[in-house]
């Protein structure tokens, strides 16, 4: 598996079957106005050399475990670099080891995104299924799970009375898809009508190691889940 890691520190990626890694070492650097040539050099050196040194140290550690295929060091404009690397490297997964903007290009791609929070463990998976989900990719990850809870979320439609028929159809479709996954993975299941905000409580009660989200839930929902959970979030 080819992985792009967006980070400024070492990550434990043991739980992933990573072979090739491209590192985007992202670290904001302090900006200041230059008053002299000497000041410019010192300012640049002070802000860049420690970062480059840390990036090199990280690469040396990663090289012991993986095939490191490349690296970028970025001080700002993370979105441009993420999009460029996505085109150039065509990774299977992008791992966000620190705050990472979710670019439109990344969301529209088929690349899996992992928002890393400590070890990558798949023992107890909470999978949030949604309309337009990439079920085949989701299944590849669900295979790793020991206990799985599948949550089908149907967003309420407004006003309810005007969309009763469509709402019912969406619920039934969701039930069917969840049922299929339930049978395949011998999982627990629940279909909810409501907002993504419920995931927080469910994840806590289920004691999930990781939340797998269908990218069909959209960028805002992904961000909401990230804000409200403490475990790793995998977007498929």
């Amino acid at each position, binding site marked *: 598996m080819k992985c792009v890691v967006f980070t400024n520190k070492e990550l434990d990626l043991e739980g992933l079957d990573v072979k090739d890694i491209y590192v985007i070492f992202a670290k904001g*650097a302090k900006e200041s106005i230059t008053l002299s040539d000497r000041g410019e*050099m010192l300012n640049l050196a002070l802000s860049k050399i420690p970062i*480059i040194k840390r990036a090199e140290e990280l690469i040396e550690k990663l090289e012991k475990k993986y095939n490191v295929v490349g*690296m970028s060091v970025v*001080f700002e404009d993370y979105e441009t670099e993420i999009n460029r690397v996505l085109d150039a490297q065509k990774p299977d997964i992008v791992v966000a080891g620190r705050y990472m903007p979710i670019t439109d290009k990344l969301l529209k791609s088929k690349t899996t995104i992992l928002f890393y929070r400590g070890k990558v463990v798949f023992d107890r998976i909470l999978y949030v299924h949604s309309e337009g989900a990439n079920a085949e990719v989701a299944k590849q990850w669900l295979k790793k799970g020991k206990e799985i809870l599948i949550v089908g979320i149907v967003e309420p439609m407004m006003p309810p009375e005007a969309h009763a028929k469509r709402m019912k159809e969406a619920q039934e479709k969701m039930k069917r898809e969840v049922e299929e996954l339930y049978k395949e993975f011998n999982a627990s299941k629940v279909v909810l009508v409501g907002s993504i905000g419920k995931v927080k409580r469910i994840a806590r009660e289920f004691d999930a190691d990781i939340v797998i989200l269908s990218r069909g839930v959209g960028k805002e929902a992904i961000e909401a889940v990230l804000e409200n959970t403490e475990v790793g979030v995998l977007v498929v």
Partner: protein
Amino acid sequence: MEVVYWKEIGKELGRLQVKKESVKYRIAPFVQWKVLIAEQNAEVKKGMPAMLKIRDVEIPENTILAPLSIMRHAIGTTIDVIEKGISRVEQEKRITHAIFLPVEDGVVEKGDIVGVLKVFFVKTGVIDRRFGFSPSDFKIREDMVTANLVYKENGVLKRKTIKTRFFGYFKSYIAEWEPVISTENVDVKKGDVRRIRIKEIRLQPNTVVTPLHIMRNAFGSVIEVVQARPSKVEEEKLIDEAVFLATKDGKIQKGDLLGVLNIYYTAIGKFEPKMTPKEEKFARFVYEKSGRIFRSGMLLKPFAYRRKPISRWEPLVSTEDLTLKKGEVAEVEVEPIKLEENTIVYPLYIMRHAYGTVLDLIEKEPAKVENQKTIKSVLFMPLFDGEIRKGQLLGVINVYNVEVEPYEVLSKWLNEWVEEMRRVFEGGSK
């Protein structure tokens, strides 16, 4: 002036009319490296420039390129590169080919390292030039790939597979000059590209070199230098040969000055640059006057200089029509370029004329760096059969202002810089 470039290399030419102008820019003290790796096997012939397809190299916007000197392949050196299409300094660039000048017959194999580029970050706008660089102006990108380091050991060609990993370094603006002096008598013929044994030059760790341009010998130009065995920038190096391109028939004699090396101090790896005491060196200066060759012996005092971060580009525009034959080096007259006292020049990398590249500048009787000079002709290496027309751009040179001082001053400059850099290296991050 007219810019002639390849829309599709070797097949379709493009032409552009652009205004000729000198452009000022600010150059950053941070330099990145990009390794050039052959993409396919190529049989090459001594002295005949070869256009090698290389793995595409992406170059960020607002950058200029130069070679990391010291021959990187046992059978030749890269003298320039070709980009896809045509771009401005301010734009991203994609380098697709290297122009390789072989010093012997042989085969460049797919995966061989044929050169290393230095990528300098620059700013061209008036306000940007004034306020300088901030950290976010740099995009550091490196693809790490396996490639062959090709070198010779006891005359035997060796290939060692390494994983490339070149991040870059901070350079000081502090440098010194080292004369390149022949230690053998050699007959040369116009167009010869050959190794000449030279008085050993021992380079301190953390130094990079580049030949001082403007031909220093009436018979030709030092294109490259060769070290006894491969080493890293952060290690000590021993230079014992020069790659010399002869521009006319003649004799190189033991003790002749072939050229001069600029030696720059850099901050990289285990940061311990140091300088060693230097003595005057005797060399014979070989120059042409009224069609005759003169030799004049002199004691060369060691000098140091400090480069200013503001520089300028000067376009080299032909004043004559000339028919070119691939591999036959030509002297081409150009619109005169006046260089003020205390300036040094380097040709800007990336081939600027479809048919070839400018290797050096010619001054019949080279003046000291400290003196004013006017450049009226250049040394042009054709990569294709073709022609140059009056008014066409042949290349671009970087003109740097320098502050020249006796060698003893280098110690003071270097110590100040080393102390500052050491504090940065050993100190914490911001």
